[in-house]
């Protein structure tokens, strides 16, 4: 099937700004699913609120566009009642790390078989460029006009600490690697987190000397490095990308099936 077979064409061109990375992520999600050969009716996409969440309207799967930060909570209920479905949960950084931070760590703790795709653009885009938990120190935002003083989360360590069994980071520049990582994340039995550095030229870039999408993708190209590379030793400021952990651990729905057997036998 072609990319167009997975989208709701009547809503195109989409509403994202020119150069927004979220469209690249959407394309990568589609290509990963195409390669895996999963049937469209076996896939549920659950999103929250924000630029990232609008992905739901464009994809021809079962799509649930929920509340700000709560996508994983809706997805948990859905997955537990129909474990055979493939659940993809695209989120933004405000969505996943701020208002939905609690659901993120608990989904990781349960190791429920959902794939969280966090499009991290370091800003609240839909509301016009406010600072988020991943806005860097000193960065400018409409609610940080003197520069952001809030330290940012390290999302990878956050979810590793919470017990996620698959954690990866990629960028919109490294798109072939993104497709590859998404395939592995979707196939992984357990909670998978894929952080995608995804540019917001309109609100983050413009305010922070990265005026265009191209500038921002060049930043991802030049300022990231594969996990454990020699470059990282020389330049500790480089952001690592790749798969940080991929480990088989008891998955929540599988554990629940065992619990049912136990309850029935008593």
């Amino acid at each position, binding site marked *: 099937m072609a990319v167009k077979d997975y989208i709701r064409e009547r809503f195109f061109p989409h509403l994202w700004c020119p150069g927004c990375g979220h469209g690249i992520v959407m394309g990568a999600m589609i290509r990963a699913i195409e390669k895996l050969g999963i049937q469209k009716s076996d896939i549920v996409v659950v999103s929250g609120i924000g630029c990232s969440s609008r992905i739901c309207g464009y994809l021809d799967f079962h799509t649930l566009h929920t509340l700000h930060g709560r996508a994983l909570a*809706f997805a948990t209920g859905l997955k537990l009642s129909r474990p055979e479905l493939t659940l993809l949960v695209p989120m933004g950084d405000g969505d996943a790390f701020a208002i939905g931070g609690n659901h993120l760590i608990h989904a990781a703790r349960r190791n429920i078989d959902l794939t969280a795709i966090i499009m991290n653009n370091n800003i609240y885009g839909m509301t016009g460029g406010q600072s988020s938990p991943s806005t860097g120190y000193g960065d400018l935002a409409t609610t940080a006009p003197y520069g952001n003083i809030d330290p940012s989360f390290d999302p990878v360590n956050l979810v590793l600490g919470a017990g996620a069994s698959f954690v990866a980071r990629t960028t919109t520049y490294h798109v072939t690697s993104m497709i590859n990582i998404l395939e592995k994340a979707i196939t992984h039995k357990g909670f998978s987190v894929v952080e995608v550095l995804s540019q917001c030229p309109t609100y983050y870039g413009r305010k922070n000397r990265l005026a265009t999408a191209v500038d921002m993708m060049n930043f991802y190209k030049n300022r990231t490095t594969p996990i454990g590379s020699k470059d990282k030793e020389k330049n500790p400021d480089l952001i690592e990308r790749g798969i940080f952990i991929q480990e088989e651990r008891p998955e929540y729905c599988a554990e629940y099936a065992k619990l049912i057997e136990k*309850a029935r036998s008593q």
Partner: protein
Amino acid sequence: MKNNVLFLQGNEACVEGALYAGLDFFAGYPITPSTEIAELLSYRLPATGRKFIQMEDELSSMCAIVGASLTGKKVMTATSGPGFSLKQEAIGFAVMTETPCVIVNIQRGGPSTGLPTSGSQGDVMQARWGTHGEHAIIVLTASNNQDVFAMTVEAFNLSETFRTPVVLLFDEVVAHTREKLTMPEPGEINVVDRLHTSVPKGTDYHPYLPREDGRLPMSDFGGVHRYNVTGLAHDMWGFPSTNPTIVYDLMRHLVDKIQGHTKEITRIKEFFVEDAECLLISYGASARTALHVVENRRERGEKLGLLELQTLWPFPADVVKKRCASIDCVVVVEMNMGQILHEVKRVIHDGDKVFLANKIDGTFIAPTDILDILRIIQGKGA
């Protein structure tokens, strides 16, 4: 006679009712005085292959049941005041997306943490207007275990019929009172199952296009029809829309499907109302005290009656209006500062004959609390 009489708490009667109605999925978070519902269901549901999950907070519990409902399951959560406040956003999502679900709120003293182990009926207006925006919702209550069971089954039935969240607004007194429950036999109480679409695969399915009878058949997530569900204003396919005509129709539909069926949704109990000169109007635990007073006064020849509301919202205005028409005085008995009182005054247009007998200090309303008011009305002094 079969051995089907149980001795249990109101919370347990609620669980029995939910299981009778076909509860498939429960998500919750511990909170007094509703916790027994979650505890009992964590034991009962897995034993029949169904799902229970304790979520990380109240918000996610509400979200999880909505997610599960979309796969075709009958779902419920249970909470109390502070948790009910936290669930409101997602209750609004269920209203907007027309997702069937049942929310039990065991009322305790508020505001805030208030009186966690005391009874109250302070959430009547919150149940009606807790979530933001214009909307309609169904709220049921009950005063004893038998009715808690029946109203719980009703809650699921109405939720499926009208594709709406239904709130079971019980209170701590009813929830923790131990009394008997005669378990209905299977089939004794009607159970409404989900209405699924008959539109076949490959044919355009409209999740938000009401049939001629106003009902909207559903298609389960994971089924053959792939559609969108959003909390945004949406068209008949479930896709976001800001078109004024579409938004108007949606708003009218969401409100009219409930307000326009008030008669069908109304559950009410009447005691000695036919010849009553003075009428008590009450609900939930307060109705127990009110009934005691009425029965007691009837023995003395006083023409006192009781209207026990089981449907609080949509407010059964027509019944209340009709019953109060030839009555000299009406006393609303409730454990708050007059939330249903205002509704009664609003619908009967004769506010001067409506009085309030209430309790707000965390103790249970006693017969004397009602008798004191009756004495004042009858000019006998306090």
